[in-house]
Structures are given as structure tokens and as C-alpha cells.
């Protein structure tokens, strides 16, 4: 890989240990994937914030970094943590957990990384179409590449952090136009009724596509919230980092004819749905907001819950970023006066659900339904938003 003189100096340690290992991470990953140089990025988004997922090992490392006085050189944001410190629900967690989670947030902040604590940083500040980014958090990566038109690989926590400190990323993968073309044609013949059908479609496609970019035709709507669910699910069951929808932007018709074609029928979707709903138990948590809700999703939830009451034996969590919660005061009031909770800075997947006495959750998120049994040890029921609200408020 070609390095500038400036980059070489950092690689050799002239700016100290922290920048040196950051540079080494980027250069070695670049070597691994055939990059020829480093390119500047406009922002970094860092995963690995919840103490539940990263544990003590990461704290050691983040402490060493933060103590060596490094600062980010670009806008950098963070994924959700395990706790909403302004919500009393989480005070029942152990003192050790509460302290260590705070420590992690503070260590990132010390390096100049914003405590945005959301998986949807694009609702706070959307990247420019065509901007190069270094984002971790697979659902945000798919969203940025496919819906916004920004360019990012699917980074891991450490490489996104290294990029945040150096301000660059190795130029390979989705940073190159030739790698952003569709490699499979998906024809959706199944009927998609709501956002949860889009999620089930995503889970089905992720398994088949693995890391191939699809061109998806036959979607009844390209509404942003639905595509967000589909993309998040694809990145969960597969390594998909990008999709194309609707109009055919493949110029080469011959290429298009030779492309692998995947037909999605009602049966495929039904199978995917059934795989996500592994429980018939009565849920004790209804969870909406994976990925974190947008302003318009909060509005939709408020409209469907208005005038209803959440039952006493079930919790309703709606998760979003603090930024969106602050912009959505009137919707938050409706949801909370109905007995729901609008929770920020965390979500059901990255908090300690079992410690909070959750055994079965119901969600409209295919990503959560897929992960919750293994990552949280809880059972999952997968249903559209309208059904989730109905069950939460059933008399």
C-alpha cells in the first residue's frame, strides 16, 4: 500500500503509540483487502459501546488509548450503550455495570467522540451523497450506502475507531465504484403488507445473498422506514452492506441477463417469519425501535396508541436517539401518557434484558427477533407495529 510521508511518520510512531496502532490497523486491513492507499473520510461511526457486548477487555484498551491523549480528526459518533441514564428502569442494574458503562461512554468522549449513542446517526446529521465514511453498525452501513448514497465498508468497532483518530480509511471494497454494482437480481413476487414483511424479506435475502449486492425489484413501496427494516435484517442474517431498489441502474443488459436471479414468493416470506417467531408465550416486553425510531416512526406510534392504555403486566419500550426524543416532545407525551416508555441511548439488544426481568419479547424488528434469543437469552415473537400496539394495550 502506498503511504504519504505524513502517514509513514505516524506508522513509525512519531505521533505516539495510539496513532501508531491506529495507522497500523488501517494499513494492515488495507493490505489484507488489496487497498492501494488511504482516503480521507467525512465521518466515523463507532460500535462497541455497550458494556454488555464489549466487556472488560475493551475497557482496558480504550483506557490505554484515551490516556495517551488522542483526539478524533473527523466527526465521530457512537452506537447505543446498555443504559439510558435518564430512565429509572435501569437503576435496578448492578452498581458495577452502571459504573463501567459510564466509564466507557466517558472514555470515548475523552477522545472527542460524540456520545450520540444511537444506531441511526444519520437522523442527527445525514452524510452527503457520495461522501466516504468509516462506519461500523451494520444497519447504518446498509442505510448509508443504499438509501443515502454515501460510501462505506462494513467496519468493525476497532477499525472505525482507528479511522476516527486518523481521519482516513483504506481504499477498497465499497469505496470503489466497480464494487458497488448489483451482483444478483431479486424479483419480489410475495405480497409485502407492512414494515415487518420488509424485515422478513431482509432475513430471507441475507441468508441467500451472503455478501452479494442485490438489485431488488417488485417492492410495493420504497418508504424509508421499510427499507431501513429490510436493510438491517439483510445485514443481520448475511454480510450484505448495500442494496439497490426499483429502477434499473445496471447499464449493461448482458450483465443483467447473466446475473443470478432470486424469486421471492409468499412461502419464502412465511418461512422467514416463522423462523423469527419462536415463542407463543405471552410477551412481557413489547419493543419498537430497532434500528432506533425516526421522527416519523414516533409520530406513527403516537397516532396508533393515542387513547389506549398499556396493560399493567406488560412493558412497552420505544427506543430512539436522545436527539430525536427531544424533537418529538408531543409524540413522546402521547406514548408515555399511554403507559409506554420512550427510551434513549440504548435498545433491547444491547441492554441486560434478563436482569430487567424480560423473558419473552415481541417486536416488529426482524433484526431484534433474530438476535434476541442468542444475544439476550429471551424468546421472541415477531409481529408488525399495529399488532405490537394491540397486544400491548389489549383489554
Amino acid at each position, binding site marked *: 500500500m502506498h503511504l504519504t510521508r505524513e502517514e509513514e511518520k505516524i506508522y513509525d510512531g512519531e505521533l505516539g503509540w495510539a496513532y501508531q496502532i491506529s495507522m*497500523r*490497523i488501517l494499513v494492515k486491513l488495507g493490505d489484507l483487502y488489496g487497498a492501494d492507499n488511504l482516503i480521507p473520510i467525512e465521518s466515523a461511526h463507532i*460500535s462497541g459501546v455497550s458494556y454488555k457486548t*464489549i466487556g*472488560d477487555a475493551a475497557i*482496558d484498551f480504550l483506557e490505554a488509548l484515551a490516556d495517551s491523549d488522542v483526539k478524533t480528526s473527523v466527526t465521530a459518533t457512537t452506537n447505543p450503550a446498555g443504559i439510558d441514564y435518564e430512565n429509572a428502569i435501569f437503576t435496578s442494574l448492578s452498581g458495577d455495570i452502571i459504573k463501567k458503562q459510564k466509564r466507557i461512554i466517558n472514555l470515548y468522549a475523552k477522545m472527542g467522540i460524540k456520545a450520540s449513542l444511537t444506531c441511526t446517526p444519520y437522523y442527527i446529521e445525514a452524510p452527503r451523497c457520495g461522501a466516504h465514511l468509516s462506519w*461500523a453498525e451494520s444497519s447504518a452501513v446498509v442505510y448509508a450506502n443504499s438509501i443515502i448514497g454515501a460510501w462505506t465498508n462494513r467496519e*468493525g468497532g*476497532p477499525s472505525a475507531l482507528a479511522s476516527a483518530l486518523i481521519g482516513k480509511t483504506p481504499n477498497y471494497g465499497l469505496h470503489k465504484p466497480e464494487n458497488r454494482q448489483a451482483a444478483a437480481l431479486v424479483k419480489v413476487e410475495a405480497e409485502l403488507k407492512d414494515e415487518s414483511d420488509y424485515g422478513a424479506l431482509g432475513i430471507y435475502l441475507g441468508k441467500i445473498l451472503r455478501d452479494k449486492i442485490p438489485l431488488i425489484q417488485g417492492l410495493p413501496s420504497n418508504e424509508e422506514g421499510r427499507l431501513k427494516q429490510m436493510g438491517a435484517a439483510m445485514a443481520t442474517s448475511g454480510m450484505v452492506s448495500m442494496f439497490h431498489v426499483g429502477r434499473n441502474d445496471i447499464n449493461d443488459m448482458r450483465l443483467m441477463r447473466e446475473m443470478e436471479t432470486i424469486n421471492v414468493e409468499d412461502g419464502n416470506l412465511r418461512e422467514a417469519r416463522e423462523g423469527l417467531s419462536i415463542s407463543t408465550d405471552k410477551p412481557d416486553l413489547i419493543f419498537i425501535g430497532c434500528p432506533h425510531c425516526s421522527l416519523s416512526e414516533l409520530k406513527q406510534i403516537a397516532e396508533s396508541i393515542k387513547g389506549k392504555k398499556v396493560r399493567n403486566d406488560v412493558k412497552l419500550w420505544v427506543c430512539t436517539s436522545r436527539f430525536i426524543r427531544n424533537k418529538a416532545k408531543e409524540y413522546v407525551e402521547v406514548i408515555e401518557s399511554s403507559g409506554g416508555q420512550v427510551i434513549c441511548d440504548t435498545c433491547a439488544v444491547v441492554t441486560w434484558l434478563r436482569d430487567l426481568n424480560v423473558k419473552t419479547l415481541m417486536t416488529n424488528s426482524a433484526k431484534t427477533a433474530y438476535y434476541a434469543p442468542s444475544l439476550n437469552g429471551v424468546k421472541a415473537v415477531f409481529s408488525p407495529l399495529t399488532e405490537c400496539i394491540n397486544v400491548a394495550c389489549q383489554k
Partner: protein
Amino acid sequence: MISALTLKGRPIVPGKVRGTALVSTKPISFLGGIDVNTGTIIERDHDLYGKSIKDVILCFPHGRGSTVGSFVLYRLAKSGLAPKAIINSIADPVVVVGAIIANIPMVDKINIEMITNGDVIEVEGEEGIVRVFRGE
């Protein structure tokens, strides 16, 4: 001991060390697959189940699993439980990043089938060279 074999791979992390080979034919997941308090492989069904990776030259095809695994290597190194060096068939980002931040000499693109459990091995991370010593 005589140098029975010299293998040339790709340098990943510099450093020259000598130690005993612990060889696996299976990928290793550092998050969840290794006990960070003992350095022992705890993944059931793994061919190295129950073995300690402390101070060995750990040879395996590649890593797998969460990127948090990189931090696990860092923690093992801080507690003195890390391998002396890592040799992979084809490196994956989790192990590469882990070896860099933990400063564990590492080489990949080595045919690890040429290495046997218990071989004495010398790793030259800077050059990507692995020397295998055997018997008399």
C-alpha cells in the same frame, strides 16, 4: 535442534520470538471461545478444547466471530496469557487488529499443515518468516 523447514509468509505484526507450536485445523473465535481469565480454549467441539494458548506459537487457519475478539487478545496480552506469536493460513480482520493492538508478532499465508503440535518454531514477524525446528 536443526532447522527442518523455512516457510515464507506475509508479515502482519513485527517481532522475533521462539516457542512451541500449538496447531489447530479450526478457526478460533476469541470472543466466547477463550476464557480471558485463564487463556484456555473453552469452545466445545474445538480441537484445542481445554488447551492453554499462553506463551505458545498459535497456528490456526483464521479467526471468526465478533470484532470484540480483537479486544480479547489485548486483554490476554495485558494479563500475560497471550500466545507468543500467531500464524494463520489467511488472516481475518479480527485477529489482525487484535495482534496489532496487543503487539503479538503475526505472520499469515503460511501452510499450517507443514507445522505439527509441539514443533519448536521461530517467527520473524518483520520478514514474514517461520522456521520450524525438529528433533536431533
